[in-house]
């Protein structure tokens, strides 16, 4: 006997009525995590929106688009693998993280053997809010990038936490593709403003009163 439902789609699955114990899922069954940043409008700073699980950055980008731009205005998106994000400690809100972190000058120093590259810097201004992009620095290591960020953005307050990501590790939407962020007019059914409930209720009440 298979499981009977009022939903014909469920009946077509022929699910067993008494299933066996499920097998525990293995690690990474839901794939790796990526962190997603969106741009709310042209020229606004890219802001953290949340993670997605995905097998690679292209799919992470698609999932990020579905998850984070489907219902909100968006003009661009960045994704980066979680493990490529260097995170500083979190501080109390009264203290700037740049004032408490100790940067190892030796590691941070320009290293002749390594070529300098671009790093993206993100600040968290308040706990519970989202990290926002403040700028790009050039350095030869994460620590060097953080030292450079302290020079350039250390005066911005408050800063309770900093994320540093190599610019090369950020997968970005293309300016040429900006049409993908447009919502077509025929999707108004998913906006609260498309439902004029009060008009219907008022009309109903008037009709009732007239009876």
């Amino acid at each position, binding site marked *: 006997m298979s499981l009977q439902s009022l939903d014909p789609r469920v009946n077509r699955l022929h699910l067993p009525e008494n299933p066996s114990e499920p097998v525990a899922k293995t690690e990474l069954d839901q794939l790796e995590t990526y962190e997603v940043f969106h741009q709310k409008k042209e020229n606004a700073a890219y802001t953290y929106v949340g993670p997605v699980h995905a097998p690679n950055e292209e799919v992470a980008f698609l999932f990020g688009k579905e998850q984070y731009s*489907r219902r909100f205005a968006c003009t661009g998106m960045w994704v980066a693998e*979680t493990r490529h994000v260097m995170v500083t400690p979190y501080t109390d809100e009264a203290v700037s993280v740049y004032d408490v972190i100790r940067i190892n000058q030796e590691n941070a120093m320009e290293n002749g053997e390594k070529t300098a590259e671009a790093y993206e810097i993100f600040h968290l201004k308040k706990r519970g809010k989202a990290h926002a992009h403040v700028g790009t620095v050039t350095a030869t290591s994460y620590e060097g990038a953080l030292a450079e960020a302290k020079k350039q953005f250390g005066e911005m307050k408050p800063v309770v936490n900093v994320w540093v990501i190599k610019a090369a590790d950020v997968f970005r939407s293309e300016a040429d593709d900006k049409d993908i962020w447009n919502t077509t007019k025929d999707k108004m059914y998913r906006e609260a403003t498309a439902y004029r409930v009060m008009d219907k209720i008022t009309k*109903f009440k008037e009709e009732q009163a007239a009876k």
Partner: protein
Amino acid sequence: MYGGGNIFEATKFDDLTTEDPVKLAEFEARIARGEKIEPNDWMPELYRKQLIRMIEQHAHSEIIGALPEGTWITRAPGFRRKMAQMAKVQDEVGHAQLLYSAAETLGKSREAMLTDLINGKSKYSNVFNYPALTWADSNTISWLIDAGAIVNQMANAKGSYGPYCRALDRICAEEAFHLKYGHDAVVHLATGTPKQREMIQAALNRWWPPIMTFFGPSDKMSTHTETLVRWKVKMATNDECRQQFLDMYVPKIWELGLTVPDPKLHKNADGVWEYTEPDWVEFKEVINGNGPCNKERLAVRRSAEENGAWVRRALLSPKAKYVKPLA
């Protein structure tokens, strides 16, 4: 939407004497100052365990809650309603994604949460163990269960855990559409033909008892509850949420000329709603697996997991390494 009614049971972590007193004091001071807790901060085990449990149950409620409404996508009357119903269900599944990630930051993997859902170890909102018998039932869920969820989520969004607050802010914004959509669908039936009115009244009669249990039984005011209130894990008592829901929505039901199947229901002069105590014996029975749809909900969820496994396996890169999400 959300399964309300968190029942916070005492755990073996209740004993805070094993926690570092200095760190505990710093943690409590941070919450008292109104600052949020972020994933890498020190936190007591009790805080971590209760939050994982609460956020995980919330996430499960979102994906299981998509099933009774999902049932009606293919049979929704008209193309526009099909599209709107689909958009709503897609939102709910998206909410689950946000919430699983928030719970993951506390150290429980998504795999472990999904396994615990399927094997029945972790719960989801009990109301989804009842069937959506007609289109009107689906509309009742869209309006009133989502309304209850919003009451709960608005309260929780002011809680102390950063990742949960971020997820809830986004979820609450999306719920505005759900509430309007559900209300509109109910109003359409209630102001329609006698047959349509009959349908929506019957659905409301079926759903009222589960809705009244939605926020859970009255909280037992113990030191345990007090701790969770102080830590801003529990933001409102179950009774406070129920009262707020009744206050906001019973008048909206009545103005449509519909009745609520509870002869005791009325608002006292002091503004407090009186109602027949929900059937907590049935609530327990259903939560323990003996409701009309428990088996089906888990079986459907499980088949979705199993049938999608080959896709996830095919996509997995040998270089992949699990790191929990950052925030």
